């Protein structure tokens, strides 16, 4: 029961932090440079793990479908299944999990260190707002970066699927892409991208929230980092199901 109350209290605190970050960002003077810095630092620099994850996920998905469907004569549909699986589900979700682990833990460690070394207090004492300076640019950068990384993951994942499908099933690239084109609609792409916007928000806000609530010196920073990885991963997985349910109900 106590755990549930803590969960509710933290959820409320995250909601309040979100609202404060939103208004802080738009409060004059609007600062774009920190957002572009974070976009580079957190988003663009995550491209390599995104590409690697997506490539091998697309490849293994194609391998499993091609061999698994073969007894039923369905291996020709590998392209359809791989593209649908990547674009609607695995592209956004795995990208978010990987980037969440990298970026969310980074935010928690960085902000946590700033808290324990009194830098956050220093920001306040110098007349600035830590939420505007630290939280708003990070959350916004994640919200912008995740859909872009997801598009990258979708493309690379489908490409990985193509390579293995060509080898395992013996189809041509043209056949594969025709299947992909026939299968995927704009709704599928938007389904994945819409989820990635929420994922970006969760990664940014949870990393910052956990970092800002760090206590207990350097040991606390370590604990915050671990907590950020676990909390972000669980939130992403649970929210993925909830968001998918909503989007499927609305758009099919």
């Amino acid at each position, binding site marked *: 029961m106590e755990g549930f109350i803590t969960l509710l209290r933290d959820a409320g605190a995250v909601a309040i932090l979100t609202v404060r970050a939103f208004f802080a960002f738009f409060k004059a003077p609007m600062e774009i440079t920190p957002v572009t810095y974070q976009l580079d630092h957190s988003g663009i620099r995550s491209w390599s793990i995104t590409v690697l994850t997506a490539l091998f996920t697309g490849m293994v998905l194609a391998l499993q479908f091609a061999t698994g469907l073969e007894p039923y004569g369905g291996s020709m549909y590998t392209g359809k299944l791989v593209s649908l699986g990547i674009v609607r589900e695995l592209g956004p979700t795995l990208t978010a999990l990987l980037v969440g682990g990298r970026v969310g833990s980074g935010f928690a460690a960085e902000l946590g260190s700033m808290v324990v070394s009194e*830098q956050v207090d*220093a920001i306040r004492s*110098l007349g600035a707002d830590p939420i505007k300076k630290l939280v708003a640019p990070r959350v916004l950068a994640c919200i912008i970066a995740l859909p872009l990384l997801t598009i990258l993951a979708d493309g690379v994942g489908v490409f990985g699927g193509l390579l293995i499908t060509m080898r395992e099933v013996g189809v041509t690239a043209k056949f594969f892409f025709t299947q992909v084109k026939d299968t995927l609609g704009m709704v599928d792409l938007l389904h994945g991208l819409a989820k990635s916007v929420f994922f970006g928000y969760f990664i940014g806000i949870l990393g910052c929230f956990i970092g800002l609530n760090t206590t207990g010196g350097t040991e606390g920073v370590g604990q915050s980092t671990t907590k950020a990885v676990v909390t972000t991963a669980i939130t992403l997985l649970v929210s993925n199901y909830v968001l998918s349910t909503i989007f499927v109900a609305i758009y099919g």
Partner: protein
Amino acid sequence: MDERNSPSSPPTREPLIEFTGVKKRFGPKVIYEDATLSIYPGETITILGGSGTGKSVLIKMLIGLLRADAGSIKAFGHEVTTMNEAQLLSVRTRIAMLFQSGALFDSLTVEQNIKYPLREHAWGTDAQMKARVEEVLEMVGMPGSQKLKPAELSGGMRKRVGLARAIAIQPEVILYDEPTTGLDPVNVRRINGLILSLQAKLGVTSIVVTHDMDSCFTVTDRIAMLYDKRIAFVGTADETETCTIPYVREFIRGGRGVLSEDVV
């Protein structure tokens, strides 16, 4: 006011800062039950107390970094405890704080660190800010260190840059949180010298939180001692030296390396 809290010669001016009946607790741990203290313009007052007695908490409550649970804290005649973050801005432009570790921003250079408050308060043009950075670095004895990163600085240098950042926007009050803790004797003397010279040059009011007795007697006009969750004693350096209250004597003797009879 507590009957033990009886400054024999308080300045006759109106207090600049007043703590009245302040209460503060963190969870079950009570830090202050009834803290009352007046601080007068232009004086240097040292707040003494053992580790964990909440010395830093008191000055953090003054600029709203921590909130008092009850009681009144007035700065420049305005009640701080009821101010929101936007209102606290006016207090924070007049009261600067030197944090224990300097609290420099790791990702910024010394120059960018000192420009930080100047930018926030739209202090002037870039050239004016640059000149101000040079000026305050000169004041703290670190000219030419603009391009260094905090990681390249020693503990004493970090504190001096932190002090330069604190005085950049010309505050009326400077709060020093353990300014000499963790420093070697040369740096301790240097920081104490800075506190004294800033006091002389800028005429600021200084509140120094420390458990370093030697520093305390070097820089201070008055001493306030925390004991039993309240400001239990306030007096001049001489009054503190000759004070007969047991815990004050004990603290002073302990702080100066004299073992008490109990310990012996």
